[in-house]
């Protein structure tokens, strides 16, 4: 394919899917990181345009964004560890963000308490709205394995939601400022 044709395809991909990829990243990272992740994801797409499936590129883009975010997190691990440490020394933030119901806050807390793999399979299904076959592409597993993972993740989320006892731990939300 020629460079102009490649470029036209990339622009079409961006126009169609950038919002979804940005939403994916924004659900998992702060605003600046999400912006970076979108740029990185489409840069990878540009470099590997021949690998991007023509029929359904979104799961491929999600998978790339997932890896980009994972790499970013790994790179930022030291700073995050420090931040977490410093966070502990600050006064506790309010129990819930404004505009988030008590039920929502409890759900988000339970979600945050899950293993990342469990959380991801749930979010791909619920927030990204992917069917199991497409979510399996994102996670690099078979559809059958995806079903098993989803089933287990749901059970764990239900278990995390079950004890309604008050807790002092508060899910920290990343802020943009």
């Amino acid at each position, binding site marked *: 394919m020629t*460079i102009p044709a490649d*470029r036209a395809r990339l*622009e079409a991909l*961006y126009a169609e899917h*950038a*919002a979804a*990829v*940005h*939403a994916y990243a*924004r*659900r998992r990272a702060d*605003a*600046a990181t999400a*912006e970076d992740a*979108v*740029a*990185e994801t*489409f*840069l*990878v797409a540009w*470099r*590997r345009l021949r*690998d991007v499936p023509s029929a359904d590129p979104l*799961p*491929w883009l999600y*998978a*790339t964004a997932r*890896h*980009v975010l*994972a*790499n*970013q997190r*790994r*790179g*930022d691990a*030291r700073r995050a*560890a*420090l931040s*977490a*440490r*410093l966070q502990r020394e600050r006064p506790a933030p309010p129990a819930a963000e404004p505009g*988030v119901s008590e*039920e*929502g806050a409890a*759900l988000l807390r339970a*979600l945050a308490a899950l293993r990342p793999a469990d959380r991801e399979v*749930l*979010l791909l*299904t*619920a*927030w990204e*709205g992917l069917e199991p076959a497409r979510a399996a*592409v994102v996670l*690099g597993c078979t559809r059958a394995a995806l079903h098993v993972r989803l089933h287990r993740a*749901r059970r764990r*989320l*239900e278990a995390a939601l079950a004890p309604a006892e008050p807790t002092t731990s508060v899910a920290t939300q990343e*802020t*943009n*400022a």
Partner: protein
Amino acid sequence: MSDLIDRLRAHDPERGGTEPPPIEPLLERIERERERELAAGGRRARHRAVGAGAPRRTGPARAARSAIALGLTAAVVAVVVAVALGGGSSEPASPAGAGGDPARMVVHVRSRELTTQPDGRPIEAVFGDEHGRPVGTMDGPVDRWSTATPRRWRELRRYLPSRRNHAGGGTTEQAYADGRLRTRDSWRGGTRSQVVHPERHPPRRYAATRALREGTADPRAAIEQLLATGQLRAMGETTTGDGRRLLRFVGEQPGRDLGRRGSVSGVRTTWLLDAADYRPVEVVTVPTAPPGWRGRGMFPGLASRTVFEVYETLPPTAANLRLLRMGGPTG
């Protein structure tokens, strides 16, 4: 779908949709990348021959990027002396009698990084390991050795014990040479090694990262760029309590308003250089409020103060070049 999934959907924080960043910066980046490839004679093919499907995890490239930026920062600080204050000369200041090609000199910097509240009150910043367990305080000495040609550096970072935080202390050693970054932490065994590709590093706001990405081993390019683009400016002199004259340079990176996506804070960097020999003395970075911030009083970001205890340029002898190797001598 199940009730649980429906409940999750109802609490999707982005269910109202998001506004993605504009495509123009990405297209500019692609164009620059293509120009570099053409300039390099197409040595690097854009498409790799891999199977279809989602790409594999790219490995710790981002971590490498941060680490290299960190390592090069020391060299950047060292070189700003010459470029900014060398009376118009672009040659770095070197000790009398050192002689030789400046790019091949081994620059050794020892510094301490202190974290403070915006008002200057110190904080005992503690470094945590990959599991979040405290290792030690971050105000320990950091030694960095680097050469511009060939591009190599090594960093030895010491975390000090803290009884208050139940931390026993530790070290992290990193060395970069020939496209490979090696890392060794005292609290876990073995040395991790990863291949890094400077040419793939995306443009960042940080001069050191930009220098790496532009494919130059000489951080002078980054400093020259900072000066040429007006990102660093002279702000006069100050005098310490013991009568030492220091030159002050300030660089400011404003915060950004991301519209519906919020905003990011800016950063003000102040460089203090010894007026007698232009060696770096101190670098202070303070976060600044993003546009539209309506908080009261001081912006609540943490500041960092890097104090330079040693700055020296060593000739590239076999003994000094060993300082650049993983596990090499420590001075």
